[in-house]
């Protein structure tokens, strides 16, 4: 593996709280970890509800609701893992951190201990900007 100070960075801001958008989060995080990227995931807004200890059933995007069964069947047919399993795997094979947004956490009355252990810390926007500086950032 490349030295830590030369590792390329890949950061994902996940704002959406729908199940379909958690899938690319898992796929890209796992792939980036496998490629040796340092991966930073910033979860904010409705996405926080997917990361709490208390498990919420994530809704499907409204505009694609009719296609939900098709996606579920397709995931089974292609042996695609669930997003949570992919993030866990990414954390095992690479340098992957999950940062929860402190502002929206406060809005939903969520504290560090309310989050699944997959979440590394609760930070503000300034921390994430600094952590992701110099790398690729995508917003989902």
């Amino acid at each position: 593996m490349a030295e830590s100070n030369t590792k390329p960075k890949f950061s994902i801001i996940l704002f959406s709280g729908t199940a379909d958008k958690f899938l690319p989060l898992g796929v890209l995080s796992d792939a980036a970890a496998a490629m040796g990227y340092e991966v930073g995931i910033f979860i904010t807004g409705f996405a926080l509800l997917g990361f709490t200890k208390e498990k919420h059933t994530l809704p499907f995007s409204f505009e694609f609701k009719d296609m939900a069964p098709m996606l579920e069947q397709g995931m089974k047919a292609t042996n695609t893992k669930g997003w949570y399993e992919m993030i866990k795997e990414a954390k095992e094979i690479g340098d992957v951190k999950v940062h929860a947004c402190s502002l929206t956490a406060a809005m939903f009355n969520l504290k560090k201990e309310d989050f699944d252990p997959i979440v590394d810390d609760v930070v503000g926007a300034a921390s994430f900007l600094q952590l992701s500086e110099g790398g690729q950032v995508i917003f989902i």
Partner: protein
Amino acid sequence: MGNKIFVDARGSSCPGPIVELSKAYRNSVVGDTIELWATDPGVKADVNSWAQKTKNKIDSITDQTDKIVIIIEITNR
């Protein structure tokens, strides 16, 4: 001569084969060869990207009737 490491990622879809490859890579040393079996057609492009990024060498990518066989030479750890 290094070791030959075999990875069977048949039936696994993106990014599965690359994840399985990276797991084998973590336990490899320079001089080892990894033989990766996969059925996801995306693996052919992805393995090239992986090799460029991690500075390793693809020796061959062979389409067989039931699988894709990729031989990777570990040149960087």
